[in-house]
């Protein structure tokens, strides 16, 4: 699995150097991840109990939105490009890729891979799979990735994608989990089909209940897909999930309530895996509306939150303090040395006075739909802000309809981000002027200028400088309070083996636990 980056000086430096930085970041991961170091072996049934999964889940790749859909998809599909445990891009259905100018990207399609139905994976299938997310009628959640795409065409055994402007990180976007390669006919994929070219073949699927899959005997990857069978169960109740693991009815669960981690560890029936990643919890403010249009007010709020306390109480210590920075420690250009913001009521008061106010009352709209513990986090925030003369009026909203009626509708709310592997992806989605999910409605001239420039900058140091300046701008002039990075916390039965390095790119080993882990 080598990739041909020779022609693309732009990408070679960017991607290879980034990989080294990430490798170093991996060394500081906690010891609990490094247990169970047996050699992988074939066999066994891997039963996964997830706190997600609805009866409304389906097969359409554009609509996958929860961990259940994501893991189920990773079990049956392959993508063009995979993000490995170190955060590096490795070829999957694209054997290699290259670009001369960052504008025209050529993906060489791997030959000899077949779908579960027996059909060969062809260039046409890849194009149909990409086009499912593109165009006027696309209903995909990642439609905006394809906005800069001018053309997708076949060239022999390669797919050529032309962009309207250079983007050195384009291959990272192509590793998104929505971009499953599915068989196409007449240039379209069938979004109700289970057929894929991934490690496991679907035997049965009841939405919101369970999916059973058997190993694909023709899977092309060596040293992957060790289980004979995978069963993915939706267990929404966190106590039921814990019980299922403790009584041996499943081998892996996600979303462990921080309050129960100590108890689980003491019983010695499971291994807790806690992976620091780029995921973060946020409180975005509407920067167009008073009082949040004044940066002094925003800074006052940023100094009025006790970040350490929040990591301790809301995450049970399984996370890290964030400096209002959407770029996380697992990113390449993470600005680790930025001046930290500690809880400082005097400083908050100072900024409040600078804004011409003695005290401030703002409503904060929260629901646990934003993130687990959001209501408690809001209460903690209100408690500390009171000491700075800021009265946060906590408004508890219903979970149902939260993303419709509260998020990006009310001026000050709670939300979350899964984090992104590349800076450009994160900034373009959540902070660029006019971006669909710019949930603070924030406009910053210098930031937007840097965003476009950094995208096509060839010099690594200059690029790092630009991204660090952007992080500083977001942190000190942005309109989003980002108190913490939450770890991905999961627990496995003691007989599950994992590689030394578990991916920090998304939960459950980048959704790939099904093909990377094994039974000892």
């Amino acid at each position, binding site marked *: 699995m080598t990739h041909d980056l020779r022609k693309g000086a732009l990408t070679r430096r960017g991607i290879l150097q980034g990989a080294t930085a990430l490798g170093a970041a991996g060394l500081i991961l906690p010891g609990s991840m490094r247990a169970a170091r047996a050699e992988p072996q074939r066999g066994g049934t891997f039963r996964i109990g997830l706190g997600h999964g*609805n*009866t*409304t*889940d*389906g*097969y*359409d790749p554009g*609509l996958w*939105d929860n961990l259940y859909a994501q893991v189920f998809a990773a079990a049956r599909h392959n993508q063009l490009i995979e993000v490995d445990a170190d955060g590096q891009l490795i070829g999957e259905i694209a054997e290699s890729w290259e670009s001369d100018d960052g504008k025209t990207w050529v993906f060489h399609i791997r030959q000899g891979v077949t779908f579960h139905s027996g059909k060969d994976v062809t260039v046409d299938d890849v194009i149909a799979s990409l086009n499912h997310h593109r165009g*006027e*009628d*696309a*209903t*995909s*959640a*990642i*439609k*905006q990735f394809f906005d800069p795409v001018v053309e997708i065409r076949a060239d022999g055994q390669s797919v050529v994608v032309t962009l309207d402007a250079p983007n050195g990180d384009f291959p990272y976007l192509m590793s998104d989990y929505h971009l499953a390669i599915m068989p196409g006919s007449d240039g379209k994929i069938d979004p*109700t089909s289970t057929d894929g070219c991934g490690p496991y073949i679907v035997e049965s699927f*009841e*939405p*919101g*209940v*369970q999916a059973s899959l058997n190993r694909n005997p023709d899977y092309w990857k060596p040293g992957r897909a060790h289980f004979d069978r995978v069963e993915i*169960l*939706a*267990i*929404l*109740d966190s*106590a*039921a999930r814990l*019980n*299922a693991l*403790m*009584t041996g*009815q499943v081998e892996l669960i996600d979303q462990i309530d921080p309050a129960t981690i100590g108890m689980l560890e003491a019983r010695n029936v499971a291994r807790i895996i806690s992976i620091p990643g780029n995921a973060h919890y946020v409180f975005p403010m509407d920067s167009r509306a008073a009082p949040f249009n004044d940066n002094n007010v925003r800074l006052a709020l940023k100094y009025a939150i006790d970040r350490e306390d929040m990591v301790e109480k809301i995450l049970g210590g399984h996370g890290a303090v964030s400096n209002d920075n959407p770029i996380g420690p697992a990113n390449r250009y993470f600005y680790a040395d930025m001046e930290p913001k500690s809880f400082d009521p005097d400083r908050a008061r100072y900024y409040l006075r600078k804004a011409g106010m003695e005290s401030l009352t703002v409503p904060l709209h929260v629901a646990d739909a934003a993130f687990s513990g959001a209501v408690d986090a809001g209460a903690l925030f209100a408690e500390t802000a009171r000491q700075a003369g800021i009265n946060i009026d906590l408004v508890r909203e219903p979970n*149902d*309809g939260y*993303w*419709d*009626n509260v*998020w990006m509708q009310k001026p000050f709310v709670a*939300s979350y981000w899964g984090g992104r592997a590349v800076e450009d992806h994160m900034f373009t989605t959540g902070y660029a002027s006019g971006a*669909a*999910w710019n949930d603070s409605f924030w406009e910053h001239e210098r930031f937007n200028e840097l965003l476009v420039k950094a995208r096509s900058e060839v010099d690594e140091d200059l690029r790092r400088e630009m991204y660090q300046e952007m992080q500083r701008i977001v942190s000190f002039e942005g309109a989003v309070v980002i108190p913490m990075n939450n770890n991905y916390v999961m627990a496995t039965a003691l007989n599950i083996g994992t590689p030394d390095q578990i991916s920090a790119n998304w939960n459950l080993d980048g959704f790939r636990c099904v093909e990377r882990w094994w039974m000892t």
Partner: protein
Amino acid sequence: MAALIRMIAQRLALGVLTLFIVSVVIFFATELLPGDLASTLLGQAATPETVAALRRQLGLDLPAPVRYWNWLTSALQGDFGVSLANRRPIAELIAARLGNTIFLALYAAALAVPLALILGILAALWRNSVFDRAANAGALTAISFPEFFVAYILVLWLAQSGYFPSMVRISPVSTFGEKLYMAFLPALTLTLVVTAHMMRMTRAAIINLMAQPYIEMARLKGMSPLRIVLRHALPNALAPIINVIAINLAYLITGVVVVEVVFVYPGLGQLMVDSVSKRDIAVVQAIALIFASAYVLLNLTADVLSTLTNPRLMSKG
């Protein structure tokens, strides 16, 4: 007898009307909920363009009355359509879960109804005894705890020690015995929740009759108390007891979503909750009609049975 048949026919016709009204109310109540399927399916990822495109694809851009009419005409032809969220046939989605829900309801009823009747009769027989008080206190305690609490206690005692599974995994190939074993804890939870109501109604109905002159007559004849209760009091007390049992059976079919969640039981309740929160109106409608039918049919059955147990009503017509 003719009167009885006329009553059944009348009640069935009224039932159909009820179902129609229910379908209208549910449809427009769901319309009142904020957001629609397109925006909830896309969730945080929704942008105005993708929501509009999805609405167009799903036909959600049509006015509500038109959509209701379309649904009604195909439903009347027996076609409940496909789930808008995952495009699976609704009949298929519901069939397996309806089977599971009815299985659990009957299982719980098979445990709860005899238990409630026996306890109720014995409590009436030994009125104000220690047994009566203990049975009352026990049943009221069980009904007073929230269902999930009872469920967690049972998991702690009976599942963590390994006697019964805490999670129900019923598949089409499970044998009947396996199903009974796996679904024991949810059935027991529901039994504890519904027994009190039925038991107290049985006790009250019998005690009410025990003051009647004909019971006194029987007692003066020297009959044993048990025979008096079973032979003379119980048949006359059946009507209210049957009604309470019917209401509890309807509850077992329609109201057990909490128990389903705790035991990961794939029943209709969870499907209903998911479909409402995703605004998948076609599925909501189908399940609401099943629930409404359950109430209509069980009430009808209760009335028919009450009539049959009352010779005065039977001989009139």
